[in-house]
């Protein structure tokens, strides 16, 4: 446990976060954008757990934050998929470029 420094966890979560950001910016399909969002949320969870383990091993706050983030991510994914299905019914497409009714 102690032979891996904290910075390696942080580099892992940073890399995962920016992989998610890359997917979020470059993808056009709404479902793949949602998948990138899940990667971003998971990188934050790794950060919370690593900080809890290394900086405050006597407390459990990072653990609880991770639990709540997972619960909120589940709610967010469910709502996002409901919106995607509704969009698909209207536009017959889930490409972000095709859904531009509100664009001026």
């Amino acid at each position, binding site marked *: 446990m102690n032979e891996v420094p904290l910075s390696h966890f942080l580099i892992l979560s940073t890399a995962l976060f*920016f992989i*998610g950001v890359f997917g979020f910016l470059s993808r056009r*399909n709404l*479902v793949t954008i949602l998948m990138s969002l899940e990667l971003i949320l998971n990188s934050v969870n790794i950060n919370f757990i690593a900080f809890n383990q290394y900086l405050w091993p*006597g407390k459990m706050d990072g653990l609880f934050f991770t639990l709540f983030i997972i619960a909120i991510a*589940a709610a967010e994914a469910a709502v996002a998929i409901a919106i995607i*299905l509704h969009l698909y019914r209207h536009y017959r497409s889930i490409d972000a470029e095709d859904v531009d009714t509100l664009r001026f």
Partner: protein
Amino acid sequence: MSISAMFFYALSAAVLVSAVLSVTSRNIFRSAIFLLFSLISIAGIYFWMNYEFIAAVQTIVYVGGIVVLIIFSIFLTQQAGVSLPAPMKGRMIYAALASIAGFVLVVMQLLAHPFKVDNSVVASRGIKDIGHGLLETGANGYVLPFELVSILLLAAMIGCIVIALKPNSTTA
């Protein structure tokens, strides 16, 4: 390097490689499966750090719930065997530049920051302690966010039903 540290680096490599494949694959179903591998490897990292409860929650909620939901929505909205349209070249380049620049910036910051690592004895983090912490009303208790999350999940469930309902369906 000990065997334990090697496990950590192997799991990290699995997380990052499958995440990269997940955001770059042109086949959306493969992309979802790579996301699944990435999430399972993250659960492995939690197991490696002795956070068994978080690892179990990660496996149940993400792997058993969210990825299955994503695969369902792929089946409902995507024609079989059609690969995604190519991303725009310019947007791809700018996204890669922004991500790499952000990564370098953040890594430089966190390598320069002196974290005060606490090597004291690790407190017990059994299921019992987690349950007591979640429902405690005192200074270190999390009962208020716990209840708020339960209301949020109820609201999300009702919202999903309302949004995904067919607009002209007569059976409510």
